[in-house]
């Protein structure tokens, strides 16, 4: 990895102290006992087997943004129960409960620096209705991408999403077109777009912005695909081989550029930002 050691300023493993995340007592990958402080310092990657625990948007922002540089944008846009969705759970109540728990929609975006260079950062949060692409998520993405296209500042996306949000109906589906149009604006403007795919990235999110990066970077073991394995089995009665739709599978099938451990991500992004000035 000597090629990655080039950045002039030393790149720390994380921009800030990562928040606590709920960890099991033992690693589901190898069974080793887990210590929160050790895991936090290791970006919540198992030190024994390299199992990557899922992170929320708050952790991704802490990991990628240089300390004290994060400026959240459009955090006040709120979702609405536009279909009057009632069963099995009223959508409005679900969303309000998640907001009370301190989550702010399935995608947060803003500006920050990474190793001193300005970027736009957007991170999905799987804890908020499965990280589903909603009108709010689409609006935050499109606005940020339009600004990135206008200013030339590189765009970094971290995805963890089940796809489009059912409870917002066809307008959630339309977000695929809305954000892809904005990705097209970044491409036309020559703005670098780095997409980090984490576990899981499926459905409308995979079929829109997540796989359209100039460079697609997947986390080891992340499940990435369009249709989930349960639905594929239901629809086609096929036996799916082990590792089907893993990050490594997507690398072998030409969908991502690399599978990179989380502990290397910040260094790689810092280096890429030097190479795509």
């Amino acid at each position, binding site marked *: 990895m000597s090629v990655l050691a080039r950045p002039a300023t030393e790149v720390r493993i994380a921009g800030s102290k990562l928040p606590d995340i709920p960890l099991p007592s033992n690693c589901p990958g190898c069974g080793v006992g887990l210590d929160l402080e050790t895991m936090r310092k290791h970006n919540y990657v198992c030190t024994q087997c390299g199992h990557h625990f899922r992170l929320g948007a708050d952790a991704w922002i802490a990991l990628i943004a240089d300390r004290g540089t994060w400026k959240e944008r459009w955090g*006040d*846009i*709120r979702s*609405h129960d*536009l*279909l009057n969705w*009632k*069963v*099995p759970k009223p959508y409005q109540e679900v969303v309000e409960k998640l907001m009370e728990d301190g989550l702010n929609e399935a995608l947060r975006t803003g500006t920050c620096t990474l190793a001193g260079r300005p970027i736009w950062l957007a991170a999905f949060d799987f804890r908020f209705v499965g990280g589903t692409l909603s*009108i709010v998520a689409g*609006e935050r993405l*499109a606005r940020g991408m339009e600004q990135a296209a206008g200013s030339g500042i590189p765009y970094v996306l971290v995805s963890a999403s*089940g796809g*489009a*949000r*059912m*409870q*917002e*109906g*066809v*307008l*959630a*589906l*339309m977000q*695929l*077109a*809305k954000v*892809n*149009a*904005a*990705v*097209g*604006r970044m*491409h036309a403007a020559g703005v670098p777009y780095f997409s980090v795919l984490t576990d899981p990235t499926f*459905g*409308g999110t*995979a*079929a*829109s*912005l*997540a*796989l*359209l990066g100039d460079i697609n970077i997947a986390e080891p073991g992340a499940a*990435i*695909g*369009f*249709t989930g394995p*349960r*639905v*594929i089995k*239901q*629809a*086609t009665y*096929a036996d*799916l081989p082990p590792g*089907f*739709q893993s990050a490594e599978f997507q690398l072998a*099938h*030409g*969908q991502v550029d690399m599978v990179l451990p989380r502990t290397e991500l910040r260094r790689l992004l810092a280096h890429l930002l030097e190479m795509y000035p």
Partner: protein
Amino acid sequence: MTRHGRKPDDTTLSVWQVIELARHPDRPYSLDYIRRLAPDFIELHGDRLSGDDPALVGGIGTWHGRTTVFLGHQKGRSLKERVARNWGMMHPEGYRKAIRLAHHAAKFRFPIVSLIDTPGAYPGAGAEERGIAAAIAEAIMEWFRIPVPIVAAVIGEGGSGGALGMGVADRVIMLENSIYSVASPEAAASIVWRDNNRKVEAAEQLQLTSRDLLAMGVVEEVVTEPKGSAGADYDAASVALDEALNRHMQSLLTQPTDELLQHRYERFRYIDSLIHAEPHFGPKV
């Protein structure tokens, strides 16, 4: 009630009945319309990369005196034909073929008519292995760069990303008894309830009928079907579809390309702006 794909007179259909009608095998499919709109239609095949997807037909035909590129999901009626057409569910090759033909249209300045009738993209292992997600993503992005007018019509089922991959257009219209949804009711039930037997409840909440979509501002027009629905009279349904498609196309043909592409961008960028949201949620239309 939808045994012959016909709607009884003076009846208000339930949401599920509309879905059954939209999916009915007696309903006209893309080729039934295309051959009536452009009797000299010539089908073109292949994505020029690896294959040809029979779930998507594409080709050229003379329509209102102008060579036009037609694209459409194609379902089959007999079991053999259904299998051959893969129930109108596209593989990655289909999206790549569509974009190849869109570039063909752009080269010769032919307008594009896209007919949508699919349960969704194919949910199978082979499609995943050949990059269905990226194929749809790239198609959706590429449609915004195609410098000729595009009019799309949902003629039956508009299912999920598989439909939207063919549905980025300057105007999108729907036949009266068609549906357009974020996911099929079965898939939505499977996702929300983890039980696809709750499909009727899911369907009722999804707001997927043509009238719902018109009210949301997602489509420009609902085309009235002939008495007894499109399945009762293919010719009359084609005349109604032709009239609406042509009316929209005529207004686009004179637009300068820059304006056309800017409007297409804005059409989708602000497609949700009819929804009242606070604080101020995008420009009001």
